[in-house]
């Protein structure tokens, strides 16, 4: 094994057929080879001779790269392959995938903080999100706010729901002031 990987000359002359065993590095899907279709309420995928009748798409880096590294899995959640960039797909194909992603990722993004009220040991947040206005309650705010990347906050409310603030700098000054008081 070790010798093999060291010597460049030891590269196998002919690569083993991909189908026989999934390569450990996974399979990159070629946007030109793949065709998606929505039928009978399911997302279906065809690639060459292969056909999958119920696939779904998920993000490998949902926070930092929502448009890249999209994994396509079958109904048993086994990966079929990965798109390195969604933008390489034909528009209508891309719409299908994005619809699927919108379906899967339900966490709203906070666009504006309207008010934050303290009621005993919970805080009540009134916000405007990309999914409409929302009011949610948080318990022990300091523990439930995560900062996965600088300036990106994820809030978890008392019922286990997540709210994203993708970039705190992008918030308007009033929202910022509300946020600063809490976090």
């Amino acid at each position, binding site marked *: *094994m070790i010798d093999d990987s060291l010597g460049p000359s030891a590269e196998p002359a002919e690569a083993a057929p991909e189908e026989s065993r999934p390569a450990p590095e996974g399979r990159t899907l070629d946007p030109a080879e793949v065709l998606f279709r929505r039928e*009978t*309420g*399911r997302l279906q995928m065809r690639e060459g001779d292969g056909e999958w009748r*119920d696939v779904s798409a998920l993000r490998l880096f*949902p926070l930092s790269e929502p448009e890249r590294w999209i994994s396509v899995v079958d109904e048993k959640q086994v990966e079929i392959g990965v798109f390195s960039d969604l933008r390489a797909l034909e528009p209508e194909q891309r719409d299908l995938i994005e619809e699927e992603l*919108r*379906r*899967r*990722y*339900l*966490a*709203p993004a906070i666009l504006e903080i309207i008010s934050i009220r303290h*009621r*005993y*040991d*919970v805080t009540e947040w009134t916000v405007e*999100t990309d*999914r*409409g*206005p*929302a*009011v*949610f*309650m948080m*318990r022990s705010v*300091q523990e439930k706010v995560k900062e996965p990347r600088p300036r990106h906050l994820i809030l978890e*409310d*008392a*019922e*286990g*729901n*997540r709210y994203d603030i993708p970039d705190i700098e992008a918030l308007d000054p009033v929202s910022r002031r509300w946020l600063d*008081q*809490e*976090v």
Partner: protein
Amino acid sequence: MSGNAGSTSPCTPEGLGPSEPLRVCAQSDLLPDGRFGREWLIIGETKLWVMADDGGAEPGKLRIELPLAELSEPTAHALVNGGALEVSRNGQRIELVRYTNARAARFGTVAGALEKWLQGEEAEVPEEDEKRCPRCGLPLAEGTKVCPACLPRTQTLRRLARYLVPVWRPAVGLSVMALAHTALGLIPPYLQKPLMDGVLAPQEGVRPFDERLRLLGLLVIALLAAHLLMAALSAARNWLSAWLGNRISHDIRVELYRHLQFLSLGFYDKRQMGSVISRVNQDTGRLQEFLVWGSQDLATNLLLIVGITIVLLVMNAKLALFVFLPAPIVVLLSSTVWRRIRSHMHRFFHRWSRLNAVLNETLSGLRVTKAFGQEPRHIDDFSARSMDLAISGTGVERVWSILFSGISLVMMAGTLLVWYVGGREVLFGPMTLGTLVAFLTYVGMFYEPLRFMSMLLNWASRSLAAAERVFEVLDTVPDVKDVPEPVAMPRMEGRVEFRNVTFGYEPHRPVLKNISFEAQPGEMIGLVGQSGAGKTTTINLLCRFYDATEGEILIDGVPIRQIRLEDLRRQIGIVPQDTFLFSGTIAENIAYAKPGATNEEIIHAARIANAHEFIIKKPDGYETLLGERGQGLSAGEQQRLAIARAVLHDPAILILDEATSQVDVETEKGIQEAIERLVQSRTTFAIAHRLATLKNAHRLLVLKEGEIAEMGTHDELLAAEGEFHRLVQTYQDISAVSVVQR
């Protein structure tokens, strides 16, 4: 989720066609396009409907109407931050409703019930376990029904006061002392008046010089006496407070800890250990502070305010008004300051705890850090966080100093007003210098309690919240507890029977489904299956860490729920996967389940467990001190101590949970020997991934996805070429691979 949850259920709908008995009405909180909004999923005897919920009394628009007879495969899909309930109809997949995490458990239950209904079976959908307070809509903390906002405060207060009952004498004494101390504090300024007017600056010399001198002496002695008394009272008061406070918090702490020990494991599954620990530590501390100081401070400050107000009004009503003028500003300012400071303090403490977490994590992981040469990164990270802390610490001080200076200024403004107006009165009017001086001293004493009162409300509400968190734990009834008249079973034979046992940690997600089997006394049963198949859950039920949702477990023919818990635990021994050793000596750890064991018994147990040989090599033999979690012993040594522990416990039913998973092949042989000695004449349940470990088992129970796939002897199962055969094959494949790689 969004808005108030209080819209009426359409479960008595009009316009839904033929009215038929409805089975369930479930409210979702997302619309089909993923926006926030509510819909109702209604399932009747023959149909299901989905309709919009406009929040009004009118039934909303019907979006979906489907006949149940044509539906199949209802599934609650887990999505990120929520889920979707889908069904199939003629091969077509239909999404019924979408919901956030807040509703996921509810729709999980509904999906399970729907599946049964579609198959013509009976199913119950329990009433929604409301996670919000029905009165105010605040979300409730996990596993509680008490809403902190709606609970009458007086009830909490009364309950808190009960902790004062056993110590009522010192508590009353303390209050009397506090009041006396405060009242005494009002005297010295009053004495200033005669001191000024009668002695130092008498108006139109009335008194002869000698008398003035004598009066001076008397007044100073009176002042001295007052201060002496105050000092004595203050010392006694502080001492008594400390005694009382520590006594009360000890009582609460121990009560809480005792309760935590008896609470079922189910309680801990739902919570983070950190938050439980902070209840024991911080919340009881807060209660102590509140109980001891809260009542005293409230009483004394009230007394001060009332007392000074009266004194001021009596001394000079007009001047007093100038004192009261800035009072509202002081109160208002104090409460805003308090809020501002609190958010800054929060941030400061949060950063402080984060820095601690980083410190803890990185130092614990120092081996990894060194191995990958990442020291500089952690130094940078630490330095950045430390800087954050420094900045927010400065911030706290800055806000504190600016705002409090502001308050002092306002207070000073009041004082200056009194100086000016009072000064004029002394110059022109009837007022004496002594009155003015005394007046000014009282003014200085007046604003402080005002400031305190404005913070008190906040403090009290936080303390009551702490009290409620503590009481909430105390009020949690253990799921697993003795029935009123338990069956005493001092000696068991060890016949175990599972009868149609179904169980899920969350009721709507069964982990074990309809398990039935029997084990004879002395029999060794091997539990086999992939991880997640339900092996450990089976064991958990047998130990009665949890109670089965459906079905029964019997030991010697007696239902496990009827058996006295103490007897049950006495007769069941576990050699767990992760040995947990407490800090203490090796001997103490072996004798953990039998504290009175003689040294002879301990040595005997250690010999059976093949532990004796390594123990004698330790410098302090059986009295070698172990660190936390058995530091200083290898995994194999720890496991042998766990076996010795079980030997000494001498149970009728023995459970081996992956007892040899942590050790190498050579050590395993020694442990295997020990186990063989241990299992003799006991009913044994053994879990093992290495199937070879189970070669001594009389029978094997093969679990798959919560159900019994097969049961029989090793040879029978191999011959049957079923699930067990497949597992063995896989196992051999892996062994073959690892041999090649070596």
